[in-house]
């Protein structure tokens, strides 16, 4: 396939100033056991080719499932026709990139597609059964998902590379109901089962069966737990909630296409401006954020991005000061950067690459374990597992709710509280960060539902985080 793409691009018309072609073959499988029965087993196997061209300053992209020479040639012609049908636009530069060559694949021990359906269902049945028992549990789910993506990429800038990634994840979830009170609890996370670029060993590592009784018991306890009171409090965010907080209020805000208004009509803009790079104080000195596409196991890990730019590790925020943004070749060149940040990613063959997060993580601090951090916090709240999320189109004002909250009194975790929520404004919120747990409590959290782009693209990203403490946070807003 790579040879075909390279050959077709080598014959692209001269009026085409740049062209790239991606063949993407995707296999996916999702299993769901619900309330004691197999609810669904879905699998997808699909492939196709997307061709993006630049002609006369305009961009055109066309996609086809016909992964043949005739299909790719026709798609190149259609991409050109679309580019040339657009109103004339000045041709901005693209940041230079060394030609991507070779093959990359992600490390994994056991291919999840080699695990039989029967073995997967046995695990899910055992986990789901361990959730049930109380009649107030009206829904109990155990699910797992596996994904394999093979990509071939060629461009008229000399790129010719292939990649293969394997991902999987799993989760359990319960809904508890008593009268009009409804509570949910999930494990290990609320967004796609914390998938990773890894093999089946990643799923087994969750120990779903052992964690199921705790999840169910917490959901039941929440039904009659006191309401989380409103006020300004010290909070410790659990790793999964902190991961989403980073995603929404840092990751998206640092996408350079947003800063340059390219996403103003959909995803939105950013409160950060390109001229802020190098000077803006984003948060406290405890805030160190890195984008790292080389991180083992990350959903945002790859050999090259979808413009053929090699994976990189880039500090975004150091000691609270903004250092860099997430960029692709076009946005980087637009603000005069010599190199792309390597953040161009596309969702399948039928979507074109746009600026996306890779693995945007908070670096571990020195606060020890979660127990150490709680012990160091005389009075406050511990908030865990995201339930609701919303942020404005400049990534400034946000509001989150979590599945559970626990009181912190005298340096110890206390009673459970229900319907916890908090809100804030990005730079003020991060200025209250005064402690991050150490590397021992740092782990990657996979998010499989990041939406952006038109037509819509769902991207899969990971965020490394450890529990962290923030001062003076408004809680109880919902």
């Amino acid at each position, binding site marked *: 396939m790579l040879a075909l793409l390279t050959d077709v691009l080598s014959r692209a018309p001269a009026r085409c100033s740049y062209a790239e072609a991606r063949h993407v073959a995707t296999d996916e499988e999702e299993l769901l056991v619900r309330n004691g*029965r*197999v609810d*669904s*087993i*879905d*699998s997808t*196997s*699909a*492939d*196709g080719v997307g061709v993006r061209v630049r002609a006369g300053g*305009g*961009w*055109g992209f066309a*996609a*086809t*499932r016909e992964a043949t020479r005739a299909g790719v040639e026709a798609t190149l012609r*259609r991409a050109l*026709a*679309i*580019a040339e*049908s*657009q*109103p004339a*636009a000045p041709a901005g530069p693209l940041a230079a990139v060394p030609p991507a060559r070779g093959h990359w694949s992600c490390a994994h021990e056991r291919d999840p597609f080699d695990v039989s*359906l*029967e073995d997967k*269902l046995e695990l899910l*049945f055992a986990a789901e059964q361990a959730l049930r028992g109380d009649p107030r549990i*009206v*829904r109990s789910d155990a699910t797992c998902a596996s994904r394999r993506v093979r990509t071939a990429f060629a461009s008229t800038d000399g790129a010719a590379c292939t990649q293969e990634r394997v991902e999987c994840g799993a989760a359990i979830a319960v*809904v508890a109901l008593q009268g*009009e009170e*409804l509570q949910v609890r999930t494990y290990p996370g609320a967004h796609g089962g914390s998938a990773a670029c890894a093999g089946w060993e990643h799923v087994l590592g969750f120990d779903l069966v052992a964690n199921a009784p705790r999840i169910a018991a917490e959901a039941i306890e929440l039904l009659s737990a006191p309401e989380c009171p409103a006020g300004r409090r010290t909070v410790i965010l659990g790793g999964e909630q902190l991961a989403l907080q980073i995603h929404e209020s840092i990751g998206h805000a640092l996408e350079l296409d947003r800063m340059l*208004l390219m996403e*103003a*009509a*959909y995803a*939105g803009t950013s409160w950060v401006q390109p001229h802020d790079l190098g000077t803006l104080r984003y948060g406290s000195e405890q805030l160190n954020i890195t984008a790292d596409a080389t991180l083992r196991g990350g959903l945002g890990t790859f050999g090259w991005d979808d413009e053929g730019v090699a994976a990189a590790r880039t500090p975004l925020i150091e000691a609270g000061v903004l250092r860099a943004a997430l960029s692709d070749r076009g946005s980087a060149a637009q603000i005069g950067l010599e190199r792309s940040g390597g953040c161009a990613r596309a969702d399948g063959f*039928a979507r*074109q690459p*746009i600026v996306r997060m890779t693995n945007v993580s908070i670096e571990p601090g020195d606060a020890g374990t979660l127990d150490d951090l709680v012990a160091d916090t005389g009075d406050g709240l511990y908030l865990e597992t995201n339930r609701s*999320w*919303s*942020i*404005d*189109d*400049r990534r400034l*004002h946000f*509001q989150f*709710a979590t599945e559970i909250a626990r009181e912190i009194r005298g340096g110890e975790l206390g009673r459970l509280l229900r319907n916890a*929520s908090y*809100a804030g*404004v990005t730079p003020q919120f991060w200025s209250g960060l005064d402690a991050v747990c150490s590397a021992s409590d740092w782990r990657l959290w996979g998010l499989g539902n990041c*939406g952006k782009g*038109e*037509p*819509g*693209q*769902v991207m899969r990203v990971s965020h490394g985080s450890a529990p962290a403490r923030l001062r003076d946070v408004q809680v109880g807003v*919902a």
Partner: protein
Amino acid sequence: MTSIVVETPLQTAERALALAGAAADEVQVTVVRERSLMSRFARSAPTQATEVADTSVEILVARDGHTALASTNRLGDDELRVTARRADAAARAAAAGAPGTYPGLAEPAAAPAHDGYDDATAELDPARAGAALRATFAVAAAHGLEAFGAWTAGAVRTAIASSAGARLEEEVTDGFMKVVCRDASGRSGYAAATAAAAGQIDPAAVAARAASKVTSAPPAELGPGSYPVVLEPEAVGILLEFLGALAFNGLSHAEGRGALSDRLGTLVAAPAIDLADAPRSACTLSRGFDFEGVPKQELALIADGVAQAVVHDRRSAVLAGGDARSTGHAIAPGGSPQGPFPTNLVLRGGAAADAAELCAPIERGIYVTRLWYVNPVREKETLLTGMTREGTFLIEDGEIARPLRDVRFTDSVLRLLSATEALTADRRLVSGGEFYGRRFAHGVLCPGLRADGLRVTGATT
């Protein structure tokens, strides 16, 4: 591999059904062929233009009350056989446990005719996109503004063939355009239009409406509290979309999780609220049948403020029991694990001539053009949170006085509908124009409304 020349989706579905028949007894094949164009723009220049051509084949095998679904976009005989075997193996694995609750494939039924298809739109001429962008840029320039947005059109043909004898095929088209006009200081206004026929969308008119919302006055600020509110149709539509998922989903209703569980037949909204799912109503994105091949029913959901019904697919109807039947709202073959959803919500209009009449009785309140990043906080309460965006104004003494910094609301949709005081006579078909995964255009036909006491919980700085 069989050479495929030109085959309609129904012909592909029948071929796949024949190939799958050797592997399984109870099979439904769903074929969806998408062709679409999308042109995006920013700062009054084109940025991305996308054409998609894809066909997916979904093979559903049912066995002992269980289903399994396998999909591919590889249409050769060998690939379809492999896909069918994959579905059958999965169904056998599922059936190895306790019997399932799937009631079996739908009986063959004729789908009603509708006007959701337009020949000219289906031509998908990229020149039409280019012309729309040029017209938009001209309007923005005339107002001294920059234009941002997207124009898109699509044609989606869906076919179903099943071992129960179903043979269905329909093609629907959709067009959508949105424009954000923005001045140098970042003040912006939004407008959009949706129609089954892209030719019904007037790009210059959409741009002019967006431009009219950009004013140079400094924005006012409002603190947390409850305020009278006037919502434009775009804001009403997204609230109703969430209400559709949280209140009218037959699966969550049957499980007791729904917002209307034990509340059907009771007053849940103001008497002026009449909400229906009307897939063949004029000006909607019409459809004839759902993904189980069941004809889509016209269904009253709220009448005179009283909750009437929820929507069902075949699985949720079985769970609900009694005389519940599928209403034609399956969103996936065999029914989705998320349950059924209304896809053509229609809210009856009222007597107000326009938005100005809605504003007239308000001493101090909020005018909202659209809402953004709306998500549920507590599903059973229909409690949502989200932000206003691109056209938020302060109403004072019955008139729009000046721009307002965007605010965060945290409020219940059913509470807002209960507090609804007036609706405009005119309605708009509104949608977000968002197409994640397979293109499935849908929208809400609704008026603007005035409600008392929108709960504001924060604001941008």
